[in-house]
Structures are given as structure tokens and as C-alpha cells.
């Protein structure tokens, strides 16, 4: 049975990029050889739903990340991001992303504006990209962020590194 699961084709997105699954809270990747779980809830932490993203974009367990939908509301906050921003996920969900992160370069051209970027990615009209961001009300701290689509349902994944 284990061998049969191992023979399953790896999932790919519309561009043919290999997708990996990860928990929307702890970031752990479920064992690809294990039988499919009965639900999307992460079997490890029990606080996240299993999402999929391109293998280059998906976070490692220690990387903080957020998931944002097309209305720029925060849909998920990883445990590492909770620690980084000193927030509780239950307080952060449904808040605007600008309450937590803003572009590090305020003079960036509109095409590179963080919020426009996130909306485009969440809507599926833009590929994965990178941006420089900083926490709101914090100066002198910058993060490189990988931004790309994830799902389901479709949303923008913002991984800080």
C-alpha cells in the first residue's frame, strides 16, 4: 500500500511547477508517502489547514509566513509569524495586511506596490515574485519576502526570510 501511495504523480500547478503541501500554521509538510488524511486539518499541530504552493515558494517550518486573500485580509498566520510580530493568530485573522506589514520602500513604483502585488497574486494574475517589507511602525527592520499563489482556496502566500 505504501508503495502504491509512493507511485502517485506529484501535483503540479497550471505552469507545471511541482506543488508541495504544508500546514498553514506550523508549516510542516505532511509525509507524501502517508495515506491521504481524512481532512485538511494538520495532523501535527491541529491548528492549521493543509495548503499547497510551488516547491520554491512553500515555507520551511521555521520560516514565518502569512496567507492573504484578494481583499488583503489575513487568512492565516504561522506560528513563527505569531512569534515574530508578537501577535495572536486569532487576533490577526481578518485584519488588513497593512496592519502588520508595509513596503520597506515607500517610493516603489505602483507596479511593485506590495498591496497591488498581493491582490494580483491572490487573484492569479501574477507569478511568484519577491519584495522587501518591514513591520508596521518598525524602522530599520527589513525582510525579504517571497510572494506567490497558494491554495486552496486561492490566496497569496507571503514567506518572510
Amino acid at each position, binding site marked *: 500500500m505504501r508503495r502504491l501511495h509512493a507511485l502517485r504523480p506529484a501535483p503540479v500547478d497550471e505552469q507545471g511547477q511541482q506543488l508541495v503541501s504544508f500546514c498553514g*500554521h506550523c508549516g510542516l509538510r505532511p509525509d507524501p508517502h502517508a495515506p491521504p488524511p481524512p481532512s485538511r*486539518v494538520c495532523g501535527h499541530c491541529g491548528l492549521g*489547514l493543509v495548503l499547497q504552493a510551488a516547491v520554491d515558494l512553500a515555507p520551511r517550518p521555521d520560516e514565518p509566513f502569512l496567507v492573504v*486573500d484578494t481583499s488583503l485580509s489575513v*487568512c*492565516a498566520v504561522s506560528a513563527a509569524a505569531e512569534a515574530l510580530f508578537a501577535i495572536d493568530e*486569532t487576533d490577526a485573522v481578518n485584519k488588513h495586511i497593512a496592519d502588520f506589514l508595509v513596503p520597506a520602500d515607500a517610493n516603489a513604483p505602483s507596479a511593485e506596490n506590495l498591496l497591488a502585488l498581493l491582490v494580483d497574486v491572490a487573484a492569479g494574475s501574477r507569478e511568484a515574485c519577491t519584495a522587501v517589507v518591514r513591520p508596521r511602525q518598525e524602522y530599520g527592520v527589513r525582510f525579504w519576502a517571497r510572494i506567490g499563489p497558494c491554495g486552496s482556496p486561492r490566496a497569496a502566500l507571503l514567506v518572510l526570510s
Partner: protein
Amino acid sequence: MSVLRTHAAAAMLGVSPNTLRSWERRFGYPTPQRTAGGHRQFDLAEIEALRQAFEETHNVSSAISVARERGSGPSSPTRLRSALRRFDEVEADRILEESLAVRSVERTVEEVLLPSIDGLGAAAGESPSAELGFALRWAAGWLAAAKRVAPAPTRPEGVLIFDASATCDIDALHAQALELCLRRAGVRTLLLTAELDASRLAHVLQAIDPRLVVLTGRRAWRDAVSRIAYQTRGAVNLVEVLDFRGALGDSGYSSVPRLGMSAVVARDLLLARLNADHQPARPRRAPGLAKVS
């Protein structure tokens, strides 16, 4: 109200029972009731709402937020209790209106209104909370309004209910619920307090001419209730006295038939008795009535 035990609810969501309990601690949702033995009982509608939200969101906390905002589908005692705990009269009215769209008045009372207030009940010996006091007054008002729009009686027989419940007692609502159910079934029904002077019942017995007398409310002096039963039996010919929700206690010696704890079940039993006695004509008036008054 459909309820699930912890393992069944966890299986429905595809998680372990421990995970479900951890959500209850962390998010306060889903909110289970407790059985007398302390076991959790989850509202099926809440679990179903959460299961649907998992398909539409990215994390458990956002799924819970969606399930909460959307409400748990059809009106449930949990939603009504939550509104009553917030003293939100408008929301409570709205939940019962929603329930009336999918349930009869009787089912709304039995499955939504009364269980929600039962869940707010104070433990024995404790004084009632402000929430319970508010909920009882609101529910009594709702039942009174429903009674006001009940159809006119269509049956000749009358039913008299003596309520011996105390202030801030859920039994008073059950008595009101029974009166409402009987009125909606076309039976002439009158609900009176059991604190009346038992020797001065002649006028009401003459006006209602009850075929059945129901005693309810567990907090009255037992001899007062017994006196009413005695006087009624002596005053009206062929009257039958019945016990609703244990008014006469569980001594085991009482010969008074019991109607159980549910207003709808009690109504059905009362109607069955009325129907059984409807065929032969019974004497109109008790000859000994004048002696009582």
C-alpha cells in the same frame, strides 16, 4: 436539537478528539453542552458549519471565524443562548423567527427556546444570574405573544393548569409552553398559579368546566397542590388530575398519572384522553359545586 458526542464530532471533522477539545479551549468554538455526567455534546449544526468553512478558508482560526459569523445554519439553542448571554433581545427574536421558518411553533419551543434557557439554569441553591433572569422574562413574553395569536378553541372540553413553580424557574416556561400547545390544538386552556386559595376555585371551575386538571411546578408546598387536586376532584364531576414535570414528587405512592417532561408529549397525552372520552356525553355540571365555593 441534534447533538454529537466528542468522538463522532471529531470524526465528522476528520480530527482527533483531543484536537477538538483543544479548539474549544483556544477558540471557544465549537461550544459543547454537557450531559449530567459531564460528557460533551456538540451541536450538529455548529460542526457542520465548521466543516463547510474548512473548505473555504486557510486556517482553523479563520474557519472558526467564518462559522461564527455565518451562524450555525438553522437556529439552534446554542445560538439563542449566546444571544441571551449578551442580553441581545433583537438577535434572540431574530433566531426564533428564523426557526419558525423551518419549524412549527411547538418544535421551536421544544427544540430551541426551552433548551437554550435550560442551559442557562442556575445550580440548585444558587441565586439566578442576570442572564437567566433576562432570558426567563424574554421567553415568557415570547410565549405570551405566541399565545395571543393562537386560534380560538374548537373543542368543548377545557383544561386547567395549576403552576406551582417559583420565580425565576424554568418550570414556569414549561407550563406556559403546555398552555400554548393545548391552545394551538383548539383546547380551551387556562393557566393559573397554584398559590390560589383552593377553597375559592368555584368560579374558574364553573367557567372552564375542565375535563382535565394539570398540576405542574416542583417548588410549591406539596399540601397546597394536593389541596387543589382534592378540591377540583370534589367540585367537578369526572375530572381527571394529572401531573406534568413532577409536581407531586416521586414518592411512588401517588395515583396521579404523569404526563412526562415535554410539553408536546403532554399535549398528545392530554388530547388522547380527551378524544377517548369524547364519544359518550358526560354530565355538564357537578352537583356538589356549590358546596365548595
